[in-house]
């Protein structure tokens, strides 16, 4: 069971969090084609390596934050704010 360092509450067990999937997705507006909309909704990089994703401290403070985590080793490389730019990992 992983531990994540919630920026507000500190190091907590994975069971307190909910994973929200890939982060830094740019939501297109209504004018895009079905293909572009489908890409946004469904298509993902799904990397075998460093994944930039967002998590919520659902059973704690309820706040969202971003995480760079390796999907094979589960090593957490960094935790950063929702509005921060992506870190230079991988």
């Amino acid at each position, binding site marked *: 069971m992983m531990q994540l360092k919630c920026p507000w509450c500190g190091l907590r067990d994975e069971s307190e969090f909910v994973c929200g999937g890939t982060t830094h997705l740019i939501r297109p507006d209504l004018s895009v084609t079905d293909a572009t909309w489908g890409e946004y909704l469904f*298509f993902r990089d799904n990397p075998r390596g460093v994944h930039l994703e967002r998590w919520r401290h659902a059973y704690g403070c309820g706040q969202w934050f971003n995480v760079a985590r390796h999907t*094979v080793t*589960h090593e957490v490389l960094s935790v950063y704010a929702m509005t921060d730019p992506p870190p230079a990992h991988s």
Partner: protein
Amino acid sequence: MKYSALALLRGALSAHRNWVPAWRSPEPKPTYDVVIVGGGGHGLAAAYYLAKNHGVRNVALLERGWIGGGNTGRNTTIVRSNYLFPESARLYDFALKCYEGLSRELNFNIMLSQRGIVMLAHSRHDLDSMARWANAMRMNGIDAQILTRDEVAARAPLLDMSPDARFPVLGGFTQRRAGTARHDAVAWGYARAADARGVDIIQNCEVSGFLSGAGGRVVGVETSRGRIRAERIGIAAAGHSSVLAKLAGFRLPVVSYALQAMVTEPLKPALDTVVSSPGTGAYVSQSDKGEMVIGAGLDLFPSYAQRGSFAVLQGVIAATLALFPSFSRLRLLRQWAGIVDVVHDSSPIIGPTPVPGLYINCGWGTGGFKAIPAGGWTLAHVLATGRNHELAEPFQLERFITGRLIDEAAAAGIAH
């Protein structure tokens, strides 16, 4: 060499020196007609059906580890075809019908045990959902039967049937033709039969890139055992589909998650059917060796680690004990996880990719084992003919653009 009781007898008399390799370990040739990437059940079945249905034998099946070592060797061995939509029903029941004749066809006992599956209803809303489910199956011509509470108790006496259980059992429904099959045997049976028809099974061969030709068409693969050329390539790599897609330059609507399963120590027979509880998320059966085989839902964050989180394991077992409180004193013997390729509507993707000549069979998520014959059959068809098999037609990549999803999980109802 044919497997039979007689052959066993001959073996007994010759200290079992009569047996021959189940498949060869050939060196890869520089060129094949078709290359299949992924040596799990779907890839092996596709190789077999290419040879058997289409006479295409100049085929290489490339597996980066040992065949059947991925999800095919990590599932809970359940086979069933209890699906809602006609498109899914046809696909999965085709697979189940193949399973019914597979031991004889492959001359390899896959130990298909059609002991039935019992889906539990824990509330009156569940009973209604199950009525819809059972009726939908019957309208698709698939066997389904509603069970009363007492009938459920008779099928699985160790279930907690007390009225004040946290998840009381109010009834359920069953598909009698459902059950289990030995997962390793399915992989090995297809491998042996494909090899016998001339397919080269190349293990310890990892694909590291795709070779491109005119018009962006795929013309081969780069592997850890050299370059192999082929004009038609099929990917059947489950949780690693996105990795291969990336090498070929496209994306998939797939996210890979760990799906855990576990067995207890072996016991004398105590559970003769497969029990599944959508309400708690747990499903349990007892293997022919006597182990209780338990599975549940995903570890809900992307992972290629093939190991699950302990917290999720606790949840799986808690769900199981809620159904079978007498299992509390049994012991966990082995636990493991596969990497499942999950797509939004929990339905597969079988057909062409954006790269000409490159085809894919993926997206089975948590339900790939029961579909191996159908996935292999339809992948072989599109590789051989360039056209989708009619069973696969609804399951194309483009449905994620058009929105024509076949959403089995959603149709099963969100909580109310």
